[in-house]
């Protein structure tokens, strides 16, 4: 089952791009009992390593990003408001009146809300500028709170799980789905001898342009990449071109992404695993990009697969995911890893020859 305690804990952590260390520390703490070692790249991406018993085993990298959309303080205005810059691409329509939380250098937090730039109610300019009100009446008062230029804020909504519901509303499924899946995976296979070195972890700075994954891929040097990420659900909008990413219909079989073409044999294998496990799955194509881009095309190339779920209100303060989808993705990921062999990895590399 999906570990709701871990989910709660992850959603309580703040990890704007470039400031993911709290998520990284939690991930390390959770993974340490099951890991032989850890590796970091120099931007902060982290991987637990579970080594094969045999030397020179192939490397499997299970990775997703741990940063969430956020804001950085760039100036204290005379009237006490704070000029900020959005990091990543929050959905513009969701911003006015949103609660945000700054984390200060000393670990304390300061709450605030996003203001409008104009009478039409726009809370973010084309250059990604935002205006944050933390209730201070002057620049001096704002500074006395301990806030400093460069401090990061993220959405502050508390997690909601209504009784009798299969759905969870939370601030950052896009950014905490990967740690959630990574922890579940490594726990599940802890007692098993795998015929490959398993690297389970998270990248930084995905939402600002797929950055951490580049350095992480060079650090890990994988033979196979499995990306765990969220995709936008198009199951409620009246004008959606295709009803894809339907909440509750299971793990996504992503056959296309703007920045990567998933390996076809890998996709077929995931489908077979889902069928053998009786797990619901649905086809999905994404016109956005993802970390998988760089895992796939760096070095001499890595066959890459997604094990994703759909999320409503992606990149807004309140994102909706289905626990059944999370469960089917988690089981599919674990079962895929459990059935994986070095021969299959070689076959994935050779699929398009």
């Amino acid at each position, binding site marked *: 089952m999906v570990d709701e305690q871990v989910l709660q804990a992850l959603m309580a952590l703040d990890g704007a791009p470039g400031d993911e260390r709290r998520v990284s520390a939690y991930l390390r703490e959770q993974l340490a009992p099951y890991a032989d070692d850890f590796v970091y790249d120099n931007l902060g991406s982290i991987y637990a390593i579970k080594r094969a018993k045999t030397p020179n085993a192939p490397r499997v990298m299970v990775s997703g990003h741990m940063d969430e959309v956020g804001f950085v303080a760039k100036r204290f205005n005379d009237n006490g408001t704070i000029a900020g810059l959005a990091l990543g691409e929050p959905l513009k329509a969701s911003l006015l009146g949103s609660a945000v939380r700054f984390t200060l250098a000393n670990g304390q937090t300061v709450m605030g809300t996003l203001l409008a730039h104009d009478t039409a109610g726009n809370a973010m300019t084309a250059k990604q500028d935002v205006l944050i009100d933390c209730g201070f009446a002057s620049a001096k008062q704002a500074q006395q709170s301990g806030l400093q230029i460069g401090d990061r804020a993220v959405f502050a909504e508390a997690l909601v799980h209504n009784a009798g519901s299969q759905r969870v509303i939370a601030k950052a499924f896009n950014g905490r789905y990967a740690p959630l899946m990574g922890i579940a995976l490594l726990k599940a296979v802890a007692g098993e001898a795998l015929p490959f070195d398993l690297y389970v972890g998270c990248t930084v700075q995905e939402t600002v342009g797929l950055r951490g994954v580049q350095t992480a891929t060079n650090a890990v040097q994988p*033979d196979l990449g499995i990306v765990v990420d969220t995709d936008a659900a198009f199951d409620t909008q009246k004008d959606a*071109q*295709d009803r894809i990413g339907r909440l509750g219909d299971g793990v996504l*079989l992503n*056959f*296309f992404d703007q*920045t990567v*073409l*998933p*390996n*076809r044999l890998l*996709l*077929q294998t995931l489908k077979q695993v889902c069928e053998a496990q009786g797990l619901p799955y649905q*086809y999905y*194509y994404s016109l956005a990009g993802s970390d998988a881009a760089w895992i*796939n*095309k*760096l*070095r*001499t*190339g*890595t*066959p890459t697969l997604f094990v994703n779920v759909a999320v409503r209100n992606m990149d807004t303060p309140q994102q909706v995911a289905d626990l059944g989808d999370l469960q089917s993705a988690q089981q599919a990921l674990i079962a895929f890893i459990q059935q994986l062999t070095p021969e299959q990895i070689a076959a994935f*590399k*050779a*699929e*398009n*020859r």
Partner: protein
Amino acid sequence: MTFKQIDLNILRRVSEADGIGGCEREVSRIVAEYGAPLCDEIIHDNLGSTIMIKHGSGHGPKVMFSAHMDEVGFMVREITDAGYIKLLPVGGWWGHVMPAHELTVTTMTGEKYIGIVGARAPHGLSQKVKNTVIAPMDLFLDMGVKNRQAILDLGIQIGDMVTPNTKFRVMNDPDLLCGKGWDDRVNLGTMLEVMRNLEGVHTDADLYFAATVQEEVGIRGARTATHTILPDVAVALDVTTATDTPLDTAGMKLGGGLVLSMVDHLTLSNPSLIAMMTQIAQANDLDVRYDFMTDGGTDACSIHKMLDGVVAMTASLPTRYMHSPRLLISRTDYEQTIRLLTVFCQQIDWQHLDGMKQAIGIQAHQ
């Protein structure tokens, strides 16, 4: 230097093969079939690029040629209850060139089924509708069946490849050749013809002929192939837009000879490498044209800035009707490019390459 008569069967076969980004296997197998007897070794990167190696003296530079195998096409995006297939473009398409064409769906097991892109009858349509291009995402493939189940019974799945159904054709003037996917299949032919010319010929350089994957979706296979080869100098082979029709009159005409690309959207060719090509062309009575493309890139875009940098350029062939089901090229341009590269392979050595590096300010290595 004598040059072999070109083999049109190579062009016919690589053109008629089906292969969008990520599904280039049919093409690479044809390339490897022709290439295997003409090279010393074939290696691959992990995305499917096929690299044919012809060893040189052991003291020469590593020279990479690249031509991409993927064509622009589609994937099966959705199967409707009524039995239509919605299309997901893979590579750049314009709705204008799609309706009423036949497309082939290739299943995971290699079965092929032909459908037609549906179009409306013009009767009763407003001028506004008649003059509006339908977006590729809104077009659909009619498989000539009655419902969704009939599509599934054929073994067609979401994600399957869809490509134009176009036969190779020698046109009324036999210099002009019609086919699909000349972007960039014609240059798979170029590489194989150069290899045919070099059969039994010793070169100083190690020659790597790379048939790359996934160019149309973001120049990906060129990256992984370059990392596999670690070249010292590279020549990307691609097509450029011919502008010699009633619709385009800028003067890049078919049959005017080979084309050296000085600049494209993302690459500045090494000027000294271009100069060497120009000299070879002049010495062999070939017609040289220069290209400055501000829209569109080639494999060279990735190659030249990988590793610690690679001396690189693009040699192009003009084609009419790029990114459509039917393209036209000229045999003259093709033959001239083959001759140029055949001679280049025999001349390129460290002395030439050091000159190219010096020309951009790098001191020769001791």
